[in-house]
């Protein structure tokens, strides 16, 4: 069965420091992979997505993610975190028609300290 694992429930990073959020997936075929961000009480905003091609994808707000098939991973990175990046981050794998019925991980809460 398809699944997404985000091993870190909560991460605290100092402002200006680098960030890496981990994501591992289980899916039989070539996956559609996504990272979404959710601020408290808000909807989900897409940061970036991977379908095929270049395994390093760039997203909005300075985020990037690297797809590693051998490790079944799709980790999210940012070189320098800003206080406004504090939010909940969800990794998702797309299944179903056009890979858009999303299966989400449990999420990682990012706190940014000054």
């Amino acid at each position: 069965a398809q699944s997404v694992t985000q091993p870190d429930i909560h991460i605290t990073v100092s402002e200006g420091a680098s960030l890496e959020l981990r994501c591992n997936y289980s899916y039989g075929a070539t996956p559609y992979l996504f990272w979404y961000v959710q601020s408290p009480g808000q909807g989900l905003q897409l940061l970036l997505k991977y379908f095929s091609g270049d395994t390093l994808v760039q997203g909005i707000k300075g985020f990037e993610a690297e797809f590693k098939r051998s490790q079944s991973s799709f980790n999210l990175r940012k070189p320098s975190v800003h206080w406004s990046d504090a939010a909940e981050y969800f990794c998702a794998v797309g299944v179903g028609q056009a890979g858009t019925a999303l299966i989400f991980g449990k999420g990682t809460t990012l706190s940014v300290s000054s």
Partner: protein
Amino acid sequence: AAGVIQSPRHLIKEKRETATLKCYPIPRHDTVYWYQQGPGQDPQFLISFYEKMQSDKGSIPDRFSAQQFSDYHSELNMSSLELGDSALYFCASRLAGHTGELFFGEGSRLTVL
């Protein structure tokens, strides 16, 4: 730019009552998705529609039903509400053939007392 509109934003119901949530997709988007996010949980896919037909089905309870209308808006009907139905319900839309980004609404928060 127009976004996905959900109504109502907040809804309070008693157990065993019914509730209806509405979703208005982005103009020209013809595919709609419903997700349920319980407190502190990840969003769970419930159901999706394309051109008024159900396209995918997830973990939607039998007490719930949904449909998409000719103007592409969708309604999620929930009956015999239970305390565990309290959650944030998201609707998302996309334009068929455009693999990729789902555009999410801000959600409808249902509280069952």
